[in-house]
């Protein structure tokens, strides 16, 4: 009697993370836990000046210290500059431009010896005039930071669609405000680290790196080291958090390589937490001036945006956030006319990199403040105003983005209904006048972000190689890296859905450039969508091969067969015909002598933006609305976040546990950005490089979270899913700002809303914001 196997889908189920057990038991080895035989410890000497010419570096004493194997400075290494505009040499030889600057590096037998060696290096500087305020960077006599850019401009962007002059003319209300966004930093729980290991015979380099972009990294390193890229292998140990911090190539990694080259021994270089605060990239701070208009019927007319970004001393990905901000200003809600300008200027401040949301937090902060203000100005309910201007499926934005699947309106109505937004808002407005010191506020904000990759690099694709052994075990080799977000689990889930196997049948290999096929990297919330489609592609090819083979052996047509429960079954009845492993062995060991191995490269059908920054840069777009409920203690300015009701257009829920974890984590990250996190830079020096004074949200502070997932079933997405990694962090600050206004009648235009800042605003004695 043949077994009957029912159809069972894994999609939407709560699937525990595959690597969780090893992490729980402490057996997972992160970069800090890896040690190679014979390794030396690397350490970097950083500048104590922020703008100075280097007159001399005396390393003699350090070199003479027993146990020190190498001391290097700029003159000892091929010092090709790194970064987006190649302005960041790994070691600084002529001048220093910010407190991060790497002057020298040592490799020694122990950490203590390396530290001691650093203290023996003597540097002579000639101070130069400093520049800390980006608003002064373009003045006539501003100090020049990078000689190749005497005007201090790193990048400039202009964008427009429509005609804002016409837009202004059509407006009944026009408002303009200046917003200021601050420095925050990733605070990954695992600090940065790298191990560089040259094979002494072949000269090949193995780099143990936590990069989020291993293949781009390989390419960069080949260039920086003047090495044949074939001789470079990147292995990615499990990462203690990424959030975008590991997208660029930063000096500490080439420095470790130079030390390994010089000493002919493996060199391990890890940061202290203080160094992590000082030397890893921040989120991009910004001055943003937004001018918006609306008709008295409540139709948005135009947005004009001018922004000034502090590039810091060197250019990293932070300078490119205008690409993402443009999308928000041009396309979050329907805007017929838009004009946008950014200038990114050099200063002696630390430089920014990429950070979850990549400019969208800053842009949404402005747009959603104006949505509330414009609604109030024309006397329309804020939810209705948003619904009126929210796009629907089928629309194309002014920037040329095609919204094929779009759950924007459902996000708005769902979040508003579940939070009882309208009623609470009215109650809070009334309560503003009572004499209770604690005021309640409710605020709403939405966001738009790419959900199907982002075609910035020549390819936005991902490769998968899938092999099945003769027991039916699947090895999934994917180019997509795992940075804690659960990519290995969701990719396995998608493959098991195609092949009718349990997750225990899958091993994922995703961390070795010698083994895995190409992927551009983990960013732009692209992994589920693009790596997912790639994995499905490979799995479907395997499925096809298997079913065709089964058709051969069972004399049933392949299109009537299916894979379920580790068997080949008759699709209609579920009757098991043969077990999968038996079928695979029949392929392998008998006459056909075939293995089931397949590969698939998925390139999304998006395009590169043209020179006017227009184009469908992603294969899909995602929306979310978050409604937050706060309490403000007017005696102290403390804002407590009580509740967040979030509705996210995710296309489709794949791993229920994974997606909830991403959204809950992003909400709390957004809460920190809005309320407690502030990296204080004074005269180019970080004042709070520690957890005592840089405040991450702790467990007692989290809000109640209510999540709704709007399933718009994206046509291109894997099983209909869209990307989610960044979305939940993006509109929290904007929503909290709106809630503050609802609670107190006071609007604050700069984050974070620290107690003192809120208190000053309530008392009418805020520091003025100027640009």
């Amino acid at each position: 009697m043949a077994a009957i196997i029912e159809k069972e889908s894994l999609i939407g189920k709560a699937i525990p993370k595959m690597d969780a057990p090893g992490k729980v038991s402490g057996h997972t080895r992160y970069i800090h836990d890896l040690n190679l035989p014979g390794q030396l410890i690397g350490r970097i000497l950083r500048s104590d000046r922020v703008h100075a010419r280097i007159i001399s570096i005396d390393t003699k004493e350090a070199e003479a210290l027993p146990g020190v194997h190498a001391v290097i400075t700029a003159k000892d290494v091929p010092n090709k500059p790194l970064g987006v505009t190649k302005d960041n040499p790994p070691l600084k030889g002529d001048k220093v431009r910010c407190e991060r600057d790497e002057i020298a590096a040592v490799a020694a037998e122990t950490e203590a010896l390396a530290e001691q060696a650093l203290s023996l290096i003597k540097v002579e500087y000639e101070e130069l005039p400093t520049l800390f305020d980006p608003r002064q960077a373009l003045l006539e006599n501003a100090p020049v930071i990078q000689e190749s850019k005497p005007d201090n401009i790193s990048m400039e962007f202009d964008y427009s669609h429509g005609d804002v002059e016409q837009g202004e003319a059509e407006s009944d209300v026009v408002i303009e405000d200046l917003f200021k966004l601050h420095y925050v930093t990733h605070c990954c729980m695992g600090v940065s680290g790298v191990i560089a290991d040259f094979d002494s015979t072949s000269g090949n380099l193995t780099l143990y790196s936590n990069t989020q972009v291993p293949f781009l990294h390989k390419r960069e390193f080949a260039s920086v080291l003047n090495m044949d890229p074939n001789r470079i292998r990147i292995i990615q140990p499990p990462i203690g958090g990424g959030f975008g911090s590991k997208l660029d190539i930063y000096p500490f990694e080439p420095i470790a390589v130079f030390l390994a080259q010089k000493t002919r021994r493996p060199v391990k270089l890890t940061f202290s937490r203080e160094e992590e605060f000082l030397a890893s990239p921040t989120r991009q701070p910004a001055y943003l001036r937004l001018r918006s208009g609306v008709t008295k019927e409540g139709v948005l007319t135009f947005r004009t945006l001018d922004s000034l970004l502090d590039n810091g001393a060197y250019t990293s990905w932070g300078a490119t956030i205008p690409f993402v901000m443009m999308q928000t200003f041009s396309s979050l809600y329907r805007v017929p006319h838009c004009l946008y300008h950014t200038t990114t200027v050099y200063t002696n401040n630390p430089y920014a990199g990429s950070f979850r949301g990549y400019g969208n937090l800053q842009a949404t902060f402005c747009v959603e403040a104006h949505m509330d203000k414009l609604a109030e100005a024309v006397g329309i309910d804020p939810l209705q105003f948003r619904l009126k201007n929210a796009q629907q499926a089928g629309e194309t934005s002014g920037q040329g983005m095609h919204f094929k699947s779009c759950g924007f309106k459902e996000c708005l109505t769902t979040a508003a209904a579940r939070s009882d937004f309208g009623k609470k808002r009215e109650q809070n407005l009334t309560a503003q006048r009572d004499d209770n010191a604690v005021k309640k506020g409710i605020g709403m904000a939405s966001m738009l972000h790419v959900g199907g990759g982002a075609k910035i690099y020549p390819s936005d694709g991902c490769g998968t190689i899938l092999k099945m052994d003769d027991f039916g075990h699947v090895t999934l080799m994917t180019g997509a890296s795992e940075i804690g977000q659960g990519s290995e689990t969701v990719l396995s889930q998608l493959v098991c859905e195609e092949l009718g196997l349990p997750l225990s049948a899958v091993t994922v290999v995703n961390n070795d450039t010698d083994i895995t096929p190409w992927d551009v990297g983990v960013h732009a919330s692209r992994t589920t969508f693009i790596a997912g489609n790639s994995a499905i592609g490979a799995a479907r090819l395997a499925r096809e091969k298997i079913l065709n083979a089964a058709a051969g052996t069972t004399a049933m047509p392949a299109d009537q067969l299916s894979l379920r429960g580790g068997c080949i079954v008759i699709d209609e009845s579920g009757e098991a015909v043969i077990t999968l492993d038996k079928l695979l062995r029949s392929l392998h060991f008998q006459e056909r002598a075939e293995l089931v191995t397949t590969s698939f490269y998925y390139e999304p059908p998006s395009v590169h933006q043209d020179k006017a920054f227009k184009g469908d840069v992603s294969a899909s777009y995602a929306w979310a609305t978050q409604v937050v409920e706060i309490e403000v203690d007017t005696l102290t300015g403390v804002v407590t976040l009580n509740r967040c009701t979030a509705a996210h257009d995710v296309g489709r829920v794949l791993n229920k546990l994974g997606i909830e974890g991403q959204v809950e984590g992003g909400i709390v990250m957004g809460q920190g950005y809005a309320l407690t996190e502030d990296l204080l830079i004074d005269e180019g020096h970080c004042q709070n490089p520690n957890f005592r004074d840089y405040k991450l949200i702790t467990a007692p502070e989290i809000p109640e979270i209510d999540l709704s997932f709007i399933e718009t079933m994206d046509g291109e997405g894997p099983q209909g899913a869209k990307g989610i990694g960044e979305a939940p962090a993006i509109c929290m600050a904007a929503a909290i700002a709106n809630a503050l206004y609802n609670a107190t009648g006071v609007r604050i235009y700069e984050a974070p809303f620290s107690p003192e800042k809120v208190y000053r605003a309530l008392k009418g004695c805020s520091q003025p914001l100027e640009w």
Partner: protein
Amino acid sequence: MSLTHEIKFTLNGSPVSLTIPLTMSVLTMLRDLLNLTGTKYGCGEGECGACTILIDGVSVNACLKFAVDCDGRTLTTVEGLVADSRNDPLRTAFAEKGGVQCGFCTPGMVMQARHILDNYPRANESQIKRGIEGNLCRCTGYKKIIETIASVGELDNKG
């Protein structure tokens, strides 16, 4: 006149004898001398809880503890905790309920969870939150970790 000191203590149920420098922290001793890398360096300043272990049954930040004081004491690290089948419910709950993403804070969370469950068995959600306020997490937003600990507490209280 010696710069080191010999200590004898019980580690994960087994006796250990070590000679250590006077200023060495328990964290450094565990990771560098005993190759027990489950206990993590998160900040070295007692602010993040990634280095949480149990000493004489009570949770502490290993980065702030002088190793010399381990003499005569009983230490438990995550490796030992997880090997003890008494902790299977805790171990499987953490692995299965979504409280692990990058996992770097996880060993510290597991150790602190054990302390909370042992000392405050009827801890409600609010008390659990206070209980892990010294453990920072950047990935999960804490919610699933709190649910994990609460679920084990319920199990303990029933069984």
